[in-house]
């Protein structure tokens, strides 16, 4: 066994809910593995995965020169409430902000609604007499003696971590800093997070909740990250470690340990970066990334090869993924919709005799009925199996035998018999409903962003996505799908494509009628140097680019839209023109005669993205014949058709597989519908397209009516 020790390898590791995915890229080759996540000591799975891919690549861990890591640990700690003993210190009069939320019900018709509990119960929330006004001036000064008294109580109670969130602190952080300083003097080693650093944005509920979440997971994440670094170094991977953050960039280990709240949703962010990378390779300006796993589906818009970002999102939704049932976290994040639609999503029939699917999931235990582990309720995977989309003998690379009878029985008992449908129709009903749910989520997301999906290309990854992508595209009017190689470990591959980046934001209120160009230049300059220095601390050489955004709206509106003001002359007219153009694009027209206001400013600094080699254009395609076939239900036609079966590696560049056909690989199965065809691109991506759009060869006579 030859050991290459001088090689320069890059390791990506994504700790997910079920699996830890590890990818090693070295000398142009890629090696990947999936290890079951080890909850009690998450670093074990990372180490195990690292050794496996190193063995596959025939190198030692010394060959790794950089590790990029992403993890759901922070998210899980929030969902499962396993954080540190944490206190909140806030302004007198606002002790209950994080508990009172928006004072609304996220489900209008449920008399037995249960609101999610705040991360910190009321007895762990303390107040100080002080107040900053909306203009940033101090209304009530903070007395040091008050803080010292409170520090005594905090010390006595034995808190491990403290969050400080004061009203209007994003305008003047002095009081928050003083609280931190006094606490640290009295209690050295205490973990302290202040809202003006973690999330300097207006809106107290979101800001307080964000700083509380950060404080809550910080001790645990810090310990974990240090231990991971130590162990990796101990095993020979003595190289810099970086973390993927929710905004789609990477930050240093130290930055992550200080602001662990930024690691939430880092896995899905990696998926979006993975999709963006293939968008760049194929020169696609408009891409819909579609990531469907066992429990949820994530949909993200990627324009000009850049995933759309947002400033706030919700974590730990407690009620059927319903908006408002989680807790808001205001940090830069890749904007995506996540709905309860996955292979494990369970189906039932409701009072209107309608089939409903999800968000409840069979999970991995007992799993769908066809896993034969005692599951009695039908999951999407059961329906896929019955429709011929999955091969019972060849699931997960043949490692698992699927039980067709169990799937059929679950579907008939819970759906078919209740609606007077045969098994095939009931299974079709289930897949059709889950596909429609995903299509609706994608449509609403597109409308919210003023986009028309028919000009988009879909990039599908995650275990269940390639099974459903074809039908979803038909529903959305999308004509092209790419299924990239390594789709099963897409997020971890995405980590290796992410730039170093950091977004600095600040809430500074300004109306265009009272626009202060000098102040704007100063502010953007400050944000830029803050963001740049953060990125520079990760990478000493790479050129850094910056992008500035102002969040604007008409005075009186409640919804800001981000406007790119990079290099825009700081003048009211210029800003107004930029805003009105974007507003008209979103809402068909601008409004005359109204003043415009800016609420938040943001500067994002990042190193250049790696530019992938362009894909080689398709030449003429030669159809290939399959040696085997099976009957697969075609959702568009409404009956089973005979579909050819190919192994993914069988399909070579320049070959054409006519739909309906099934392309199988270890981690997933690709369904190519009738009237579509698939080919293999030079980089190994499978491309599915509408047959009539490419003028490809006439259809092979595979379809047989049922």
């Amino acid at each position: 066994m030859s050991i290459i020790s001088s090689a320069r390898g890059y390791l990506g590791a994504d700790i997910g809910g079920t699996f830890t995915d590890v990818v090693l890229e070295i000398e142009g080759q890629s090696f990947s593995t999936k290890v079951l996540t080890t909850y009690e000591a998450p670093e074990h799975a990372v180490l195990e995965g690292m050794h496996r891919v190193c063995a596959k690549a025939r190198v030692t861990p010394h060959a790794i020169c950089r590790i990029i890591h992403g993890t759901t640990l922070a998210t899980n700690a929030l969902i499962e409430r396993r954080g540190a003993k944490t206190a909140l210190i806030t302004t007198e009069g606002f002790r209950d902000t994080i508990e009172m939320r928006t004072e609304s019900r996220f489900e209008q018709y449920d008399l037995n609604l249960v609101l999610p509990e705040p991360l910190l119960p009321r007895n762990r929330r303390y107040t100080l007499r002080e107040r900053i006004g909306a203009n940033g001036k101090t209304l009530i000064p903070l007395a040091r003696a008050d803080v010292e008294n409170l520090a005594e109580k905090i010390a006595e109670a034995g808190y491990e971590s403290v969050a400080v969130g004061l009203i209007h602190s994003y305008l003047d952080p002095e009081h928050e800093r003083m609280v931190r300083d006094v606490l640290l003097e009295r209690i050295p080693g205490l973990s302290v997070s202040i809202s003006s650093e973690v999330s300097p944005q207006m809106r107290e509920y979101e800001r307080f909740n964000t700083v509380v979440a950060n404080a809550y997971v910080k001790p645990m994440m810090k310990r974990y990250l240090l231990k991971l670094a130590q162990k990796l170094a101990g095993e020979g991977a003595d190289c810099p470690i970086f973390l993927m953050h929710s905004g789609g960039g990477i930050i240093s280990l130290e930055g992550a340990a200080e602001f662990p709240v930024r690691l939430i949703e880092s896995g899905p962010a990696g998926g979006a970066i993975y999709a963006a990378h293939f968008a760049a390779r194929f020169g696609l300006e408009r891409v819909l990334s579609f990531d469907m796993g066992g429990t949820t589906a994530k949909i993200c818009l990627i324009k000009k090869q850049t995933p759309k970002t947002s400033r706030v999102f919700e974590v730990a939704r407690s009620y059927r993924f319903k908006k408002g049932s989680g807790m808001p976290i205001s940090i830069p994040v890749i904007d995506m919709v996540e709905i309860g639609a996955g292979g494990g999503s369970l189906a039932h029939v409701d009072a209107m005799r309608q089939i409903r699917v999800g968000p409840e999931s069979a999970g991995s235990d007992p799993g769908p009925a066809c896993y034969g582990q005692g599951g009695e309720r039908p999951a999407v995977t059961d329906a896929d199996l019955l429709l011929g989309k999955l091969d019972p003998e060849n699931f997960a690379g043949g490692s698992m035998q699927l039980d067709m009878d169990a799937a059929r029985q679950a579907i008939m008992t819970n759906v078919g018999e209740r609606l007077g449908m045969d098994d095939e129709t009931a299974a079709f009903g289930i897949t059709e409903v889950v596909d429609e749910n995903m299509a609706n989520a994608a449509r609403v997301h597109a409308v919210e962003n003023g986009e028309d999906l028919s000009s988009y290309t879909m990039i599908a990854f995650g275990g269940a996505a390639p099974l459903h992508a074809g039908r979803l595209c038909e529903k959305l009017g999308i004509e092209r799908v790419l299924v990239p190689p390594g789709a099963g470990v897409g997020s971890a591959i995405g980590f290796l494509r992410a730039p170093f980046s950091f977004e600095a934001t600040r809430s500074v209120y300004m109306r265009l009628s009272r626009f202060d160009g000098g102040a704007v230049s100063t502010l953007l300059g400050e944000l830029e140097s803050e963001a740049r220095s953060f990125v520079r601390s990760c990478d000493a050489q790479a050129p850094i680019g910056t992008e500035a955004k102002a969040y604007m709206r008409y005075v009186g509106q409640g919804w800001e839209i981000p406007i790119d003001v990079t290099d825009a002359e700081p003048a009211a007219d210029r800003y107004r023109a930029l805003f009105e153009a974007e507003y008209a694009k979103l809402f068909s027209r601008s409004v005359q005669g109204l003043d415009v206001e800016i609420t938040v400013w943001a500067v994002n600094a990042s190193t250049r993205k790696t530019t992938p080699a362009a894909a080689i254009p398709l030449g003429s395609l030669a159809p290939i014949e399959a040696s085997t076939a099976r009957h697969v239900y075609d959702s568009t036609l409404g009956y089973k058709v005979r579909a050819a079966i190919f192994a993914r590696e069988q399909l070579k560049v320049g070959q054409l597989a006519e739909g309906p056909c099934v392309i199988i690989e270890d981690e997933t199965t690709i369904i190519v519908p009738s009237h579509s065809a698939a080919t293999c691109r030079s980089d190994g991506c499978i491309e599915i397209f509408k047959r009539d759009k490419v003028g490809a060869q006439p259809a092979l006579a595979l379809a047989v009516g049922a």
Partner: protein
Amino acid sequence: MRNLSTVSLQVMWNRLISVVEEQAQALIRTAFSTSVREAGDLSAGIYNKAGLMLAQAVTGTPGHVNAMADAVAHFIREIGRDDIHEGDIYITNDPWMGTGHLHDITVVTPSFYKGAHVGFFACTAHIVDIGGRGFGADANSVYEEGLYIPIMRFADRGRVDQAFVRLVRANVREPDQVVGDIFALATCNDVGHRRLTSMLEEFDLDNVEVVGDFVLENSRRATLERIAALEPGTAEGSMMSDGFATPIEIKVRLTIAKDEISVDFDGTSPVDPKGINSPLVYTKAYACFALKCAIAPDIPNNAASLEPFKISAPENTIVNALHPAPVALRHVIGHLIPDTVYGALDKLLPGTVPAEGAGPLCNFQVSLRPASEAARKAGAQRAEVLTFNCGGSGARPHLDGMNTTAFPSGVMTMPIEATEHTGPIIIWRKELRPDSGGAGARRGGLGQFMEIGAVDGHVFDISAMFDRVKYPPRGRRGGCDGSPTKIALDDGTKMAGKGRQFVPEGRKVMLALPGGAGYGPASERPRAEVLRDLALGYISSDTAKEIYGLTEPDAASVEAGLKHGELPASGEGRSAASTDK
């Protein structure tokens, strides 16, 4: 017409609901009115050609539930079926044919596909201003409440009526925003129309008749099945409101029959001289909403699912006010209706409905101005600030009430940091009000304290819209009442629950918003929950001892735990926030 499969019809029904949700989202993002964008005070729906509602977006306002279902029929009648053309847009703010007050504008757009009329889209939003006296209860008739727009054309075959637009602009305080909102309503219907068109194309349909029939048939059957499963019977309920100057009594008689549920308001107080009256359409909406929550929460709103709920009230009662009664603050009475209905329903369906809650939203509007000419020169300004706030909800049969959470309305509050940017107002306090939740086996949700002042150099008027001052939420099945609303200046000066009142420079308004009532006797509350409530400060140690019978050592042990930041061991403990059904 092809014979559509059941699966396709189901998918299309889902799609119709998604279409109206998209319609509503478009409105939230373009509206200027605070109550639309923050509170979700809007609705959107799709109708078949006959004007029957097929789907309605679930938004923050139950007040539009039936109103929307009835609205399009009024438009068809007034415009004339033969005068409906492609490109038309119709409009009204008629409180009796729309949604209950002049501040709500309803826009209806007929939808055409391949040249044929296939249905309608309608939407409603609460706008910033409609002229008149401004938003408040002070008017003596609807004529004083602002501009009255009868059902008419806003656009005729694609051409917007500019004369109408000029007339609106000339009659409202914020013409740009109001006209902006009207266009936003029209845009919202366009979004719906575009989505419907692509759906018809995708499914190769000519119209929505078949899917419409499927929706209506299934909804009717599901609703009737729910009603048929109930024990028939009749029961009565009543509710007292502070009213404006004199108390108001609302009375209901509820009958569950084999195939319908009827609610009649006979015996309710007559129309009030001030603007807290409710047109029948609004009364129907809240009565129906209450019944749907209790009996068929999962069945979507449409013409058929609402049909078995029959609501009636004698004319010229406060719940069936006729033109020209003033109706601007009809929500005060409307928001009390669900608790009134539940008083009766509890007698027929025990263990289903909650105890009484805070009820009406605790809204107030503040009009700030410079305290003096010198203050004005020093930069003091005028501003109008409207805020939404909530008391506690009533305890449920198996769950505590929710703290500071609206019911029946679904409003969201604004962050105080955002409110303070809209004018020189300072919210000094906004936090839970301990001991305000009615005691019981299940405790009522807590109300809140608020303290409102102005930046130095300003005085203000507060337009109060509070109820539950004299009549706090009542407990159910042995539960105690919630705490009443309290309002005063910080120097102790008493203030009224309703109406415009002056606040001098340097003074603050001290508000205590009501808590929800309790359910079941306090003696049956598990001890662990009493300990937890005490540790969290939801109840005082006096309440814990006097009402719940906690012993002195128990109370002391809670105190000791708090020093270490710990709650009492939960044991069999349950609370509103952590208990399953």
